[in-house]
């Protein structure tokens, strides 16, 4: 079956609550059928507003939202057929698990036998068979979460929205639920729009991630690209760890540029700088910088170790490098571990390709 690449389409959507500030600015976003897309961003970045507009609880101030080619801005929420998992689950506390799941089917006037079958299927999908007669209050957080997911899926919606559904769970449960939701998505192929502020959650689960900041999508790409190739400083900073140098472009030729810092010059990958003299922030992932590299690298500098923190699987080393006292290195925990001591001078090297010269902070 050919998948519709514009199954959900935000077309030049603006949203303002008070007529003064735009919470969402000129949003242009296409979501393909069957895709798991995550809206990631800090709180107040407009991601939840986008979700609420899609669900129908907020109306766009300007622009249109299309679902499978149809404009849905004027359709009330209950007619959109979009499933939703809420932040605090929003299970109906006075109904049993069965009644919760049967609710969307009953309002659609589906016959009892059919309801029983669908509820049973949805519950087995989240492995909660036998919990039909429990009340939500008698379930653990993780179980409530699974019921909420099952309820959002039980009426076979075309799109399921999830608004930070795992926010209230503890770390271990959250991780296992991430995989569970991912597997459910893979097995039934429903389109999922997921909102979170947790970047590792986004990276784990999504096909594509839309990073929101300040009402705008900063970058829309798959998890690997988002992490490896952030297009601006915000994304680089928000996703994963990041070392930065602020400087000025002193020379540029094609993809490569020289960035002049206060006391040195580093070779970088020119991403969003165009000409000489531009201010820039160079971003470098901690794991891309090596200690005492054996082969030749584009940038080689020495710095003083300020702090060594043991993390089990790796050791974090904070180094004062080129005037940046917050330069972080991640040293994998292997048998050939170097002796790292505070105030020791070490050589650090990285390739120009990994140092991305982005817009200045």
């Amino acid at each position, binding site marked *: 079956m050919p998948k519709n690449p514009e199954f959900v389409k935000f077309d030049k959507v603006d949203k303002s609550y008070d007529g003064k500030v735009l919470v969402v600015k000129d949003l242009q976003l296409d979501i393909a059928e069957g895709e798991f897309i995550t809206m990631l961003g800090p709180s107040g970045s407009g991601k939840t507003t986008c979700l609420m507009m899609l*669900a129908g*609880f907020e109306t766009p101030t300007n622009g249109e939202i299309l679902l499978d080619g149809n404009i849905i801005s004027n359709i009330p929420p*209950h007619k959109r057929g979009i499933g939703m998992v809420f932040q*605090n689950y929003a299970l*109906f*506390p006075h109904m049993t698990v069965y009644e919760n799941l049967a609710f969307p089917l009953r309002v659609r006037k589906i016959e009892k036998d059919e309801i029983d079958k669908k509820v049973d299927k949805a519950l087995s999908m989240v492995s909660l068979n036998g919990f039909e007669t429990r009340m939500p209050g008698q379930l653990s957080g993780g179980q409530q979460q699974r019921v909420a997911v099952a*309820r959002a899926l039980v009426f076979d919606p075309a799109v399921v929205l999830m608004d930070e559904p795992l926010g209230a769970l503890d770390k271990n449960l959250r991780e296992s639920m991430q995989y569970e939701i991912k597997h459910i998505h893979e097995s039934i192929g429903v389109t999922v729009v997921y909102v979170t502020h947790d970047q590792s959650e986004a990276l784990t689960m999504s096909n594509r991630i839309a990073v929101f900041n300040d009402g705008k999508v900063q970058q829309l790409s798959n998890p690997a690209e988002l992490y490896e190739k952030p297009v601006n400083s915000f994304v680089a900073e928000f996703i994963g760890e990041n070392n930065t140098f602020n400087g000025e472009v002193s020379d540029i030729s094609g993809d490569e540029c020289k960035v002049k810092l206060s006391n040195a010059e580093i070779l970088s990958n020119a991403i969003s700088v165009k000409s000489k003299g531009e201010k820039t922030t160079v971003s470098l992932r901690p794991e891309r910088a090596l200690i005492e590299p054996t082969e030749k690298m584009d940038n080689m500098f020495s710095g003083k170790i300020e702090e060594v923190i043991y993390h089990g699987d790796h050791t974090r080393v904070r180094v004062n490098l080129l005037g940046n006292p917050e330069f972080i290195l991640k040293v994998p925990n292997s048998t050939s571990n170097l002796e790292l001591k505070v105030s020791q001078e070490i050589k650090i090297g990285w390739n120009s390709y990994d140092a991305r010269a982005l817009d200045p902070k």
Partner: protein
Amino acid sequence: MSSETKQILTTDGIPLEVSLKKAEKKNKIKAFLLVAPLLLFLFITYVFPIGEMFTRSVDDKMITNMLPKTFKAMEKWDGKELPPEDVFAGFYSDYKVLIENQTQGKLGQRLNKEKNGFNSITKKLMRQIKRNKIDESQSIKEQIMKVHKRWRDVEYWQAIKRTAPPYTMAKYLKGVDMYFAADGSIAQVDEDRRIHRILWLRTLEIALFVTIFCFLMGYPIAHLLATLPMKYSNLLMICVLLPFWTSLLVRTASWMILLQQQGVVNDFFVMIGLVADDSRPEMMYNKVGTYVAMTQILLPFMVLPLYSVMKTISPSLMRAGKSLGGTPFVAFWKVYFPLTIPGIGAGCLLVFILAIGYYITPALVGGASGTLISNQIAYHMKTTLDWSFASAMGLMLLSGVLVIYWIYNKLVGVDNIKLG
């Protein structure tokens, strides 16, 4: 499991349970001492007066104490024909004691309530005794029967016998317009004198309708309060609570100003041409006035419990209901409304119980229809001084409220009440 493993010992060898009790004992005593003043207060102001009311309402010891020998002798009397000599003799000696104590008048009055005509014949008997006309060596029965022909009527002696038990339910029967007939059976008061039953029904009717009106008006207000942004909801809350800060009488008086025929509301209706000047509707001194004033006064008692319940209902539940395909009405009816039932129960119970005991407001704005059972209780407390009847009606009202509470518990469950 064997008994050795069941009993856990502390390191000192004392059983754990004993040790725990010892450790907790001090705390328990402390906790009890903290609530003791309140318990004492409740006992003195609540349990004790209700007990007192109850004994007063059934108390009928006066005659029992006045005529001890008579009633002793009457025990053997079958009550069908005139009593034997020893009953007359007992009555004579009892009555003589009363005359010496000068309390014979009370007996006459009390017996007269039981059966008309007692007053004059007891007085006549008293005069005979005072003049020493009764010869104690002769048959006393014959001599008393000669005093007045009514003393020869068995019905009068039956009336005395009926007053023998120290307790009576007569006041309760009176409260529902019934009485003990001469033969001891329960009979209805004549139709034109049945006032209490009308009052009971009217009280129930007014309390019920006031509760319904309060609910209909309070529910949307409470919902608004719970969902509005803080700055507006605070203002609205003050508006709801405003009546609380004003004296009940002031509020009632202002309703009188508003609702009377030459009042503000009627003036306004005439001004906008809704009614003609010469046909101003009567909105006061009838049930309309009572409903309006009582609903306004009792509204906060409905709004506050509802508000406190609605405040706890997450707005995402309604959203969930809608996103799952329920129309706004279905989402409200199936999701929101059931969750507010604890508040509805608490509010309705509170308003109903308060309304059933109301009397100042209905008396002032209700006119002829404003007399409720509480007014009747107050009337007997203050005017007729028939405290035992007032107590009986008070207890009937109390038990009525308890019955309603019981029904509510059966239907909704008291655990589901949420007052705040």
